[in-house]
């Protein structure tokens, strides 16, 4: 299905057909909007990373000798807010999803291009609110904003940060809505549901979570804001309100939000592993439906964040059981990825190395979830560094590694340039090693009892903390290296060609970088996804 047309150089691409600043700021092109998200998210990533660096430096010694307690509390709060709401949630859907999804569907654009641009502006306004809150003194409630600390005790910029999160939420909702309609209504002729690339299934499931979950965090932050700002009482124990209700409402979104972060990278990993094994994905329909299952079951488990928060022990029993149910589809995905590699023709290029690193870290992250879901063990582990290590393995080891795998995979399509393969592999290994050194010791720290969000700590925890801080410095080197060679590729990189990985998928049938309207002619799909052995007779 080679629909690429030979075009005389210099080719017209979405990047060079218009040059003015306005042509970017007023663009309705999903590809340009994806790049604009990339800019903001990358900035937020390094901002959040900067906060993390200071946190790890402070924790190198047991005493609070680098920053004050208040500063430390603001640092971990702002690290969490920046990373969760402005990096992890938008990273894959808003950057790669925006760029790749319409291409994979063979569409000219998303269903609502103006709404897509509006989503970006809403995102930026929300981010500016939050940055304002950070610059004007910061916020110290933790990214979880638990009441009554956030509503009564804290004297920092809770309302501004909450409004930033509230506003950004609408960007997330509108993006999810846009993608969902796009997937339903904009597929190319012949592109049936079971021919869709798995990345599309993942984005679809994510959109469902965004649409169903995000409004609840919006109303929760709004209720918190009026409670703090106008002295309403909804969670206020002095009036008879229940602070635990805030946690229910908060986690109804914030647990499924983890799936907003991890499902799209999972989709990207499915693409990368199939492409570099040159093989159909093992158990396509199981991988596809496990995305939907995770999205739906993900809404049934939120109170596993609250086992020691004062909920009824019978309720805890229900939520613990449901949590184990949601673990199964994630396990199924992992086993299918491993099985896909069986008898593949595995081409170990940089994206595949990132994907394999993802597999290793996500495995640890997912399996350690079995500890925190186990009621009897979670009573001890809750709110310790074990939890910190667990969710960083999922969110950074899983989501960010998967994002990088996807970014490396589609980078030649996005920019038309190829980065240095060898440096990309080196960076992947540095990040993998640094990551394990940073967060591995934190499992032990948590098990021996170090609580999270501690500015100073008993001296017997120092050795493990020093190891963790050392690992963080290696991790930082890895991330900076990625930024360097990716930027360098824009200037010195070779022309990538239209399909440098010899991959299937409609996005590889158009030119790199793509045309302003994606395809020269309307693509028509006649076969399943990942049909590398297409000329042979299909046997299931």
């Amino acid at each position, binding site marked *: 299905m080679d629909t690429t047309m030979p075009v005389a150089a210099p080719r017209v691409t979405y990047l060079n057909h218009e040059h003015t600043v306005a042509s970017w700021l007023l663009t309705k092109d999903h590809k340009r909007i994806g790049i604009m998200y990339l800019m903001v998210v990358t900035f937020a990533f390094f901002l959040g990373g900067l906060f993390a660096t200071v946190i790890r430096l402070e924790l190198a010694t047991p005493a609070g000798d680098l920053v004050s307690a208040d500063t430390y509390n603001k640092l971990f709060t702002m690290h969490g807010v920046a990373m969760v709401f402005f990096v992890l949630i938008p990273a894959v859907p808003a950057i790669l999803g925006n760029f790749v999804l319409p291409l994979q569907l063979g*569409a*000219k*654009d998303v*269903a*609502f*291009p*103006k*709404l897509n641009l*509006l989503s970006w502006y809403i995102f930026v306004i929300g981010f500016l609110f939050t940055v304002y809150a950070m610059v004007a003194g910061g916020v110290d409630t933790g990214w979880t904003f638990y009441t009554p600390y956030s509503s009564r005790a804290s004297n920092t910029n809770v309302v501004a940060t909450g409004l930033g999160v509230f506003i950004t939420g609408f960007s997330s*909702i*509108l993006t999810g*809505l*846009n993608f*969902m*309609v796009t997937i*339903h*209504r*904009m597929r190319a002729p012949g592109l049936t549901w079971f021919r869709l690339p798995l990345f599309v299934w993942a984005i679809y499931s994510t959109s469902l979570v965004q*649409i*169903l*979950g*995000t*409004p*609840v965090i*919006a*109303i*929760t932050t*709004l*209720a918190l804001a*009026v*409670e703090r700002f*106008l*002295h*309403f*009482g*909804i969670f*206020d124990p*002095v*009036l*008879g*309100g*229940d602070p635990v*209700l805030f946690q*229910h*409402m908060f986690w*109804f979104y914030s647990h499924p939000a983890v799936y907003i972060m991890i499902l799209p990278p999972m989709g990207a990993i499915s693409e990368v592993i199939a492409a570099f094994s040159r093989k159909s994905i093992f158990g396509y329909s199981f991988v596809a439906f496990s995305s939907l299952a995770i999205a739906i079951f993900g809404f049934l488990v939120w109170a596993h964040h609250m086992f020691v928060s004062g909920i009824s022990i019978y309720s805890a029993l229900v939520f613990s059981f449901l949590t184990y149910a949601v673990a199964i589809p994630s396990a199924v995905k992992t086993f299918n990825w491993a099985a896909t590699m069986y008898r593949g023709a595995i081409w170990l290029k940089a994206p595949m190395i990132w994907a394999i690193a993802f597999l290793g870290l996500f495995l640890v992250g997912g399996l350690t979830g079995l500890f925190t879901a186990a009621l009897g063990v979670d009573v001890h582990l809750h709110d310790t560094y074990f939890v910190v290590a667990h969710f960083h393995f999922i969110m950074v080891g899983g989501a960010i590694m998967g994002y990088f795998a996807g970014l490396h995979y589609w980078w030649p399509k996005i920019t038309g340039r190829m980065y240095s393969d060898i440096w990309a592999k080196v960076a992947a290994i540095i990040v993998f090693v640094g990551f394990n050194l940073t967060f591995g010791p934190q499992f032990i720290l948590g098990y021996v009892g170090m609580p999270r969000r501690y500015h100073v700590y008993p001296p017997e925890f120092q050795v493990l903390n020093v190891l963790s801080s050392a690992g963080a410095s290696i991790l930082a080197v890895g991330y900076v290296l990625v930024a360097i060679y990716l930027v360098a590729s824009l200037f010195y990189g070779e022309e990538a060609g239209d399909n440098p990985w010899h991959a299937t998928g409609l996005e590889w049938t158009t030119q790199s970088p793509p045309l302003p*309207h994606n395809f020269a002619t309307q693509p028509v799909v006649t076969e399943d996804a990942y049909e590398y052995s297409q000329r042979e007779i299909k046997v299931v």
Partner: protein
Amino acid sequence: MSDAIAAHAGSHGTHAHHNDLQHHFDSLEQQHEAATLGMWLFLITEVLFFGGLFLAYTLYRVWYPVAWAEASRELDIVLGAFNTAVLIGSSLTMAFAVRAAQTGKQRATVVWILLTMALGLVFLIVKYFEYKEKFEHHHVPGPNFAFEGPQAGPAQIYFSLYFLMTGLHATHMIIGFVIMAVIAWMAHKKRFTPEWYTPVEISGLYWHFVDIVWIFLFPLLYLVDRAGHFA
């Protein structure tokens, strides 16, 4: 969602067959389906948005039935019932507006939308007087809140929820009012045909949804224990 409307309203494609078709859609049918689907998805979001408040409401009503009964009696049931009737009436006129657009009666479309807006305005004016009365009686939560008797704490939670729920509902009404003004203007400019009336239809969906929210808010807020079970 207003953007979804504007997306259809503002674009004049170069395609010869219909100037309301945007370039990235193949047909008006596809464009219409995408727009209505988008609006339904947006309304799903709205359901969960109000859902968080319904959760808080349910919990505290179960915990504090007496406070709920006492605080609810401070609301004016006549005004509440009147406003309910007004909003149901506005849903009827909205349904007729869509029907008029479907059948190509452009003049009638404008008239029905203006009627819808008028009823919406009546609702908001009544709401304004209700709020004003609450301010005068110090029933607005916060430092100046006053409530006779031992139930002052939970009663303040009741009024916090009352103002959040009705305030958000009124905000939706105001947004709906602005959307209707745009749609009325577009209808006046004869922008709709039986082949393409999508903006009228999806704004109608939004308006009906706002009506549905009130259908729940009225009994939940105004009709708690009027029979005096907890008196």
